[in-house]
């Protein structure tokens, strides 16, 4: 095993994200760490997974060069399909997308996400970029994974504004609301990995990252968080995974020490 210092937190999160993808799955790929998570899965255990990008790209093979974002030209070269957003959204809305990834700014105990108005709309404190495709992914993928920084102000009892629905108020809320399927299956944060109770749909701490304590997670969560028993430790990235992540993010822009995500 590698000592902890040999990988960054972002790399650990990318590796965790990648493990959420099974082979042959159709993945709606988001920006930043999720994109790296897909690339890592695609180059290790999920070589036949398909990547869909909302701007109109379907890929069944890795891009010929590393990309920083989905619109980089190497992500278009030798794509399986270059088409319209409506085409990508059709695949999603039909239920053909197995898994998608969403970054979050504020999340609550039922996995609802706010990436729009911190403080709410009327009394907005911080305006964030908004939904993009996130609302669509959270509504329409078979499952979605949330990736975010873990801080008390971000992990709240109830989000100020639901940009991307999770399980709403829990239990059968999604069905009641008319959502056709889905819901978050995991939340990967800077402290641990969380899943959802199959009945109540409440978020549950599943594993903590190496060096993180359960108390630390509790202290950074704004509600009385439940913990799985036994509580696992999040696996650290393997050497192969780290090598791959470095290949896809050679400058360390997303995953290096002091990277955009790390800061």
């Amino acid at each position: 095993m590698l000592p902890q210092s040999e990988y960054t937190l972002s790399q650990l999160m990318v590796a965790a994200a990648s493990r959420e993808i099974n082979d042959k799955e159709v993945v709606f790929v988001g920006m930043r760490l999720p994109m790296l998570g897909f690339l890592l899965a695609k180059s290790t255990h999920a070589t036949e997974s398909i990547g869909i990008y909302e701007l109109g790209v379907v890929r069944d093979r890795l891009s010929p060069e590393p990309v920083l974002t989905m619109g980089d030209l190497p992500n278009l070269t030798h794509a399986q399909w270059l088409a319209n957003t409506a085409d990508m959204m059709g695949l999603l809305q039909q239920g053909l997308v197995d898994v998608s990834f969403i970054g979050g700014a504020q999340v609550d105990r039922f996995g609802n996400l706010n990436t729009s108005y911190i403080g709410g709309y009327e009394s907005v404190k911080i305006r964030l970029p908004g939904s993009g495709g996130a609302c669509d992914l959270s509504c329409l993928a078979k499952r979605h994974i949330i990736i975010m920084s873990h801080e008390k102000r971000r992990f709240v009892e109830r989000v100020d504004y639901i940009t991307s629905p999770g399980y709403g108020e829990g239990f059968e809320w999604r069905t009641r609301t008319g959502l056709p399927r889905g819901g978050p299956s995991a939340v990967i944060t800077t402290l641990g990995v969380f899943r959802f109770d199959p009945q109540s749909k409440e978020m549950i701490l599943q594993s903590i990252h190496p060096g993180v304590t359960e108390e630390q997670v509790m202290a950074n969560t704004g509600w009385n968080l439940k913990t799985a028993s036994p509580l696992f430790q999040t696996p650290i990235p393997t050497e192969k995974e780290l090598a791959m992540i470095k290949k896809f993010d050679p400058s360390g822009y997303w995953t290096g020490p002091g990277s955009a995500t790390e800061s």
Partner: protein
Amino acid sequence: MSVSKLTTLSEGIDRLVSDGSSVAIGMAQETLIPFFAGHEIIRRKKRNLTLIGPISDILFDQLIGGNCVEQICAGWVGNVITGSCYNFRRAVENKSLKMEDHSNLTLTMALFAGAMGVPFMPTRTALGSDLYQTNSGLKIMSCPFTGETLTAVSAIRPDTAIIHVQRSDPYGNAHIWGNLAIVKEACMASRNILITAEEIVDSEIISSDPNRVAVPGFKVSAVVHAPWGAYPSPVPGYYNRDHQAFIDYRNKSKTDTDFKKWQAIWVDSVPDSDAYMARIGIERMTALSITHHVVSASADFGY
């Protein structure tokens, strides 16, 4: 083939972007963003615009900073590789900007409704979200056949769509390639279309491949020759994305004062395409050029 629609950017923007009008711009998402045309809107001091787009990747922020914008109708406003944009944040937080919060799917279907000439389109997204609070164009409805709960999205018909393409003839017949996002829907939905193009080419080149045409020329109002007109966003076949420019913009637009300095350099003192290219500089242009060519297999449209 009628009359050439070639014009200067100033004339095109003056004619097609009037104060208070709605403008769809940046419809290919991260690629082919008409930055140079957007900057001309700032230079021409257009006011009270409604901007329509899926994600804007800093261009909306620049137009907000340039005091051109009254309302934003978008899925996401930010800088895709750095996150939040500052003019946008300030404007929403001090309530000087009206918002219609879309998801990418609702915006796509709003423009598709406009393109199809129907008043709305149904979707399964946004149910249970608060987009309903901050977008007057969304309504819960029941399917007339199945009774299922759906989100109805009201049609958007922009006054003008501005798109950047690889090549156009003088009549508005243009080739576009790469990821196409909502370019077609936006053009078909809009009353006017302004095209900026890397190259102006002969009509025979465009009509050699009518499947690659963005929108039929008869719907296009004006064509402007604008090499590097999408910089710093990428243009398939022409140049790569300048990541550093997006990072620099983040760093140089944190305050209103900073933004005005950025605007002075990148907008106010750049009167035309030549000046834009000079500002970018030969070194950057070389670094961004296409070095690995993948040329499309040919298709025969003969008889």
